[in-house]
């Protein structure tokens, strides 16, 4: 049995919990509850809860809204694009023109995703480093040091050790050159000039284009796309002159006229009518490779033959195919994968648009200009079993057996805070856990530094509102029994309280009177996750902070006590305490 690490998740208030949710297997959506917001218990197992619970480290705090913000209620803004392999920054204009992959020499293995390094075929075969290639002679290949794949296996070699991206764009698997888009465009223009007006049959027979493009050529996907695109652009320009519709033909799909014309492609079939292209308003379809049409009855046959001779082993896995941009059924079709660029992003509050986090733009710097994380504003909660678990004991919780946990609240603010906890007596769900917080209301001291504390202790003890302070020593000596209404232990800016839970029995066949209402309605097997004891806790934090808000968390506290205002923050938390023994 795997060990269990207790956890605390915080709910971001951005989720709308008022919409009723439906459990899997429910026949009808549950009736909307009549209760007011305050009375409703948050159910950590509700399907919607998954999307609103976060560890404290993942949350932000907006100082303007005075509210927690989660990854779902912030806006990301890209600050910098960079390659995760060579760590070069890529200007966003380049990203727009060249796409979102590294165009230097950074590639991932198409078999296993490990990085590929360039090495010379003349170098000793064990050579690993990419940086040494400059002094060596070609040809060069891309090698994977993890699975030992080499681009040589797909017939790809390079003349130079750098600029691999550009070189790869010109080589097909097997080593044949790829015609560049420019060459193709030139060919298209020639054809248009020479054969405009001639019928389709003549066209393909008499075709003597300068670079001799074969109309039955098997195109690589990029070329096919660019051919198709060019074809449809001419079609649209011809069938509907620019002047009439007012779009330039490039990407002018926006106007209603253009839209209806595109729809016409699918509804008004133009296959039958050979001369249709001369009639205004109708368009024909591509009819050969030069126009981007690929009818390849051979490819299926080839694929079957290949499967027959080389077997299943030669096919690419779903995962491998997913990394590729094109259709690659066989391992021999796979191409080295250029690294996807990564971004540095700043985050804004979705509600008020203030910046919550802003990293330095340079790729190699890890500093933040702004970083308003919830960690610096709301108390963290650490869970520990009150009685230490012996290494020999089962890490599971015994059903129906009371067990006590210690919750330690640590205050990051420079002001002391009053914390109020509320839990349902029984957790929601089919197997309810009974919960009692022994001390649901307490004050946690300010996060001043040690010297501040020493000074304050001499002057005023007001911050602790007269509560008796118990030192660590006192706690361990005397009281072994947790007492209701009393804090278990307290330190400078932290307080521990005891929570007692009675885990449920997960036996379905328990006698009827032991069963919860939910269980009577919805019997059946123990579902995934139901053995975990999760306690919803409503936390209310109140304090007096400096007016202005700007630096209530980070600025020096306690300097100026004249302008202060009452602050309050309340949110749901989920405590994951342990797993129940299913016997």
């Amino acid at each position, binding site marked *: 049995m795997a060990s269990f690490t207790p956890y605390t998740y915080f709910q971001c208030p951005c989720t709308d919990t008022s919409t009723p949710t439906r459990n899997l297997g429910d026949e009808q959506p549950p009736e909307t509850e009549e209760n007011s917001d305050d009375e409703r218990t948050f159910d950590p197992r509700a399907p919607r809860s998954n999307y609103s619970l976060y560890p404290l480290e993942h949350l*932000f705090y907006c100082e303007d809204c005075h509210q927690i913000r989660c990854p779902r209620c912030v806006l990301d803004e890209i600050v910098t694009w960079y390659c*995760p392999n060579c*760590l070069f920054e890529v200007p966003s204009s380049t990203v727009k023109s060249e796409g979102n992959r590294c165009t230097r020499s950074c590639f991932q293995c198409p078999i*296993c995703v490990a990085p590929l390094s360039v090495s010379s075929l003349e170098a000793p075969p064990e050579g690993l*480093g990419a940086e040494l290639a400059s002094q060596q002679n070609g040809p060069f290949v891309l090698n994977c040091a*993890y699975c030992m794949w080499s681009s040589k296996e797909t017939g790809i070699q390079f003349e130079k050790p750098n600029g691999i991206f550009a070189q790869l764009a010109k080589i097909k698997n097997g080593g044949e050159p790829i015609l560049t888009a420019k060459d193709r465009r030139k060919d298209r223009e020639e054809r248009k000039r020479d054969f405009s007006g001639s019928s389709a049959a003549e066209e393909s027979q008499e075709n003597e284009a300068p670079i001799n493009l074969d109309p039955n050529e098997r195109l690589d996907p990029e070329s096919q796309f660019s051919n198709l695109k060019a074809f449809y652009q001419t079609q649209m320009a011809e069938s509907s002159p620019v002047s009439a519709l007012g779009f330039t033909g490039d990407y002018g799909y926006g106007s209603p006229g253009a839209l209806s014309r595109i729809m016409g492609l699918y509804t008004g079939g133009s296959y039958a009518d050979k001369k249709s292209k001369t009639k205004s308003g109708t368009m024909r379809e591509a009819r050969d490779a030069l126009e981007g049409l690929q009818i390849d009855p051979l490819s299926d046959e080839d694929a079957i033959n290949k499967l027959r001779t080389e077997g299943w082993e030669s096919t690419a896995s779903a995962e491998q195919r997913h990394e590729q941009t094109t259709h690659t059924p066989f391992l021999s079709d796979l191409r080295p994968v250029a690294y996807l660029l990564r971004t540095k992003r700043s985050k804004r509050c979705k509600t008020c648009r203030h910046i919550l986090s802003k990293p330095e733009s340079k790729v190699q710097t*890890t500093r933040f200009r702004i970083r308003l994380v919830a960690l610096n504003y709301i108390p963290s909660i650490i869970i520990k079993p009150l009685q230490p678990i012996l290494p020999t004991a089962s890490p599971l919780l015994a059903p129906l057996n009371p067990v006590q946990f210690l919750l330690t609240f640590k205050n990051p603010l420079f002001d002391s805070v009053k914390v109020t906890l509320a839990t349902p007596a029984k957790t929601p769900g089919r197997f309810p856990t009974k919960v009692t917080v022994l001390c649901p209301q307490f004050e946690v001291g300010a996060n001043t530094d040690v010297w501040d504390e020493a000074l304050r202790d001499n002057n005023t003890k007001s911050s602790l509102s007269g509560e008796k302070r118990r030192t660590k020593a006192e706690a361990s000596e005397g009281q072994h029994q947790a007492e209701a209404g009393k804090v278990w232990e307290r330190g400078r800016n932290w307080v521990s309280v005891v929570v007692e839970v009675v885990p449920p029995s997960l036996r379905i066949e328990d006698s009827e009177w032991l069963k919860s209402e939910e269980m009577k309605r919805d019997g059946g097997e123990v579902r995934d996750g139901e053995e975990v004891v999760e306690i919803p806790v409503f936390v209310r934090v109140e304090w007096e902070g400096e007016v202005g808000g700007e630096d209530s968390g980070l600025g020096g506290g306690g300097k100026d006590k004249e302008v202060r205002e009452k602050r309050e923050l309340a949110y749901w938390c989920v405590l994951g305490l342990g797993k129940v023994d299913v016997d």
Partner: protein
Amino acid sequence: MSKKQPKGEYIETDTGNKVSRRSQIIGTTNIILGGKTVIQAEVIIRGDLLRTYPASNPSEKQGNTVAVAIGRYCFFSRGCELRPPGKLYKGQFSHYPLKIADHVFVGPSSIIEAALIGSHVNIGSNVVVGKFAIIKDYVRILDGSVVPPNMVIPSFSVVAGRPARVVGEIAEGEVDGMDLREVYRAVGNG
């Protein structure tokens, strides 16, 4: 070895390093420890795997006597191993230095053959970091990952798998938790 350890588990150096008496540190003269670093039992550090290939520029020459350089507040858990990476270059095999910055945690039984590990890096248990990998600051490598040779891991990455790939990002709030000063202070000499 005697059956009983009369002294503490750790030898403490002037700069506050805590080195387990049961660790194996080979070639100590070629190892730099920045201070306040914890080396647990059964950790192996191969300072003997020194660079033999001559450095091209003279400024690197004095660095040739360093096989493993470790910064401050690093923590090497039980049974992990640090080995300088090696490769054939122009027909000659040589090791190259392994450099580790500050606040680097290495979990139990992990093997590290990186060229460079930045600051605030957390490496889980049973991880293999392949030869000449470069790990930048604020990176977490989950248990059981195998980081392939030559991989570059940019800052704020969460990495997992065999071979390892980036599976997530370090959240803004996780940054503070990667400081290891508290961890160092918690190490007693029992």
